[in-house]
């Protein structure tokens, strides 16, 4: 029933984020189960992206703790780490709401940049690679193979040498996921991956995420407004409203939670009193 509490990959404890007088997130706690697809939903401005920015180190939380537990047993306190180390060591990768690709570089290059850290080691921090020593050449070929694998999975393989900025919107979204996966993450944070996708692309995205979860040791945490995606693929849904968690459970539970219905969908005028009574206002 609450399998995400037994073996969480990420534990968010009492997370609070204040920007001056504005409390974007207020005492938020939830778990992300290992191997689960966890959806973080809520109306606009609920603080979902702020949770992401705290998790991936772009913001330093005002209060609270974020514990990442890797499969090899290592524990990382994400709130204490600089952003690039969270990706490199804690193995948390993310995508962005407004796509951030390296537009002037080819699709393949985008995926090669994502494998920066292992390649740096393989090239002995550039010196070995520059002199042609060590296994850099091999590592480079392996990196290209890995990139090709993800290009194949995202259906971009035949456009590998095109600049990323030339791709249509939906493909850019998929490329961003492929790029994040190339860092070999154990937790993949997707910020509205289905935004701006048509129903067919949305369906393909579902398949891709299911595949990532099944074939790779990667748990997924996603922010999404598209309920067809959320209800279809997620195992666990956390609902935020004004920085406060209002519901936490399986999609079925959340769907029928009156708090969620009130906050998310709004209610008819004649039902307000009834709902408020239920919610306890």
């Amino acid at each position, binding site marked *: 029933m609450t399998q995400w509490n037994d073996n969480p990959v990420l534990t968010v404890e009492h997370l609070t984020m204040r920007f001056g007088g504005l409390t974007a997130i207020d005492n938020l706690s939830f778990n992300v189960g290992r191997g689960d697809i966890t959806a973080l939903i809520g109306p606009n401005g609920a603080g979902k992206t702020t949770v992401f920015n705290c998790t*991936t*180190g*772009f913001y330093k939380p005002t209060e609270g703790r974020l514990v990442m537990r890797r499969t090899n047993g290592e524990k990382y306190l994400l709130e204490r780490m600089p*952003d*690039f*180390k*969270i*990706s*490199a060591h804690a193995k948390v*990768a*993310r995508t*962005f709401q407004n796509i*951030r*690709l*390296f*537009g*002037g*570089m*080819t699709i*393949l*290059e985008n995926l*090669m*940049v*994502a*494998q*920066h*850290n292992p*390649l*740096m080691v393989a*090239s002995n921090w*550039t010196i070995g*690679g*520059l002199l042609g020593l060590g296994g*850099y050449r091999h590592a480079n070929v392996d990196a*290209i193979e890995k990139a*090709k694998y993800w290009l194949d999975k995202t259906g971009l393989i035949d456009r*590998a*040498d095109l*600049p990323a*900025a*030339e791709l249509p919107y939906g493909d850019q979204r998929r490329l961003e996921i492929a*790029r*994040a996966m190339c*860092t070999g993450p154990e937790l993949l944070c997707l910020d509205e991956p289905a935004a701006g996708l048509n129903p067919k692309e949305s369906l393909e995205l579902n398949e891709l995420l299911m595949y990532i979860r099944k074939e790779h040791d990667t748990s997924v945490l996603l922010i999404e407004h598209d309920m067809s995606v959320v209800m279809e693929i997620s195992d666990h849904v956390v609902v935020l409203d004004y920085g406060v968690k209002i519901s936490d459970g399986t999609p079925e539970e959340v769907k029928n939670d009156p708090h969620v219905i009130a906050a998310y969908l709004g209610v008819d005028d004649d039902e307000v009193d009834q709902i408020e009574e239920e919610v306890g206002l």
Partner: protein
Amino acid sequence: MQAVKKPSLLESSLKDAAGGALVTLALAAVMIGMKVDVASGRGAELFIEYRWFAVAMAVVVVFAGRLVMNLFFWRTDNSVAAAVSGLMPKSKAGSGLGAALKPLLLIVAIALPFALMFWLGARGSRQYIDLAILVTTYVMLGWGLNIVVGLAGLLDLGYVAFYAVGAYSYALLAQYFGFSFWICLPLAGILAAFWGIILGFPVLRLRGDYLAIVTLAFGEIIRVVLLNWYEFTGGPDGISGIPRPTFFGLEFTRGEGGFADFFGLDYSSIHRIIFLYYLILIMALMTNFVTMRLRRMPIGRAWEALREDEIACRSLGINTTNTKLTAFALGAMFGGFAGSFFATRQGFISPESFTFIESAVILAIVVLGGLGSQIGVVIASIFMIGGFEFFREFEEYRMLVFGLLMVVIMVWKPRGLVSTRAPSVSLSKSAKGISADLVQEGHG
């Protein structure tokens, strides 16, 4: 339609031209019309000389010029930009040429001194080989700066500081410790890289314009320190008697044990010049080789990714501070190498050689050539430095023509001469270059 439009065009053009003439009159009346002079006959009294004819000339020229421009360019469909673009070759035609250009340029560069010697003789070719040395030095500096500006997208207006550090490192090490050029060359590079890192640490948290200003200030600080630390650097007197490089221990001197004697040649001062030329050519080619190799390595890709999107870089686990520092240090190192070559070639250096205008020229070479393009830097420095020296006789018009050319290039090719970016890795053999319109310039 045409009949209705014509008079209105003429009318508005006349109005505009009259307005321009009026402004000119107001300005020229004071600035040209009156000239204060010292009367030679009546003691040292000041008097005003009136030049109304010159004012009238200026007004007429502005009126006529604006009228012509209005009638034929500005207010019509054939804008100046389109007119200029029409005169220039299409960029597509240039891309095929580019592939053949590189080996051709290399062959020309290698054969150049001997070809010049063959045609002009030792005496006549000396000035041209000297010019080639100068151009190649700027090519090397351009390639060094290209790492910082072109690849990593960090706008550095104080690059000449590293050139100065390199030059002074060699000059001072030679003066105080008697080190030879070949020992000092790597030391100068290391010292310049070290200064690059020292500058980098506080500066790299700045972006864009702020970074540009601080690097500019750094360049000036280095120069001012060199100028004022009289006991150590000789200040404005500079350092003279900097030792010349040797060819594997053979000095380029007359008589026994010299280069000419060892190889059984007749002594000629041109030997040293040719040697210097090949020295800088090899150093420049090394810079190019290293840069091109780095571009295909994770660090080079990280530089370019940094130029495209820094936040995305950090989300992928790239330590952006270190990455920027390596770019700065490496660019500085090549600047330092070039600087110590400059010192050994001149035999004399003073802070005067390292003014801001040098930084500006190097940056102009990189920007005109096309950010990130290696071959573009070569073409730009041949035109800029070569052109500068060739037209030395027309001193007064040189800057005018230079400015005009800059404007033409910026209208014709706003992203520089070579404005496509070659991918660093590709699956198919026939991967195309990426249009510069898609490539970011970096935000510092």
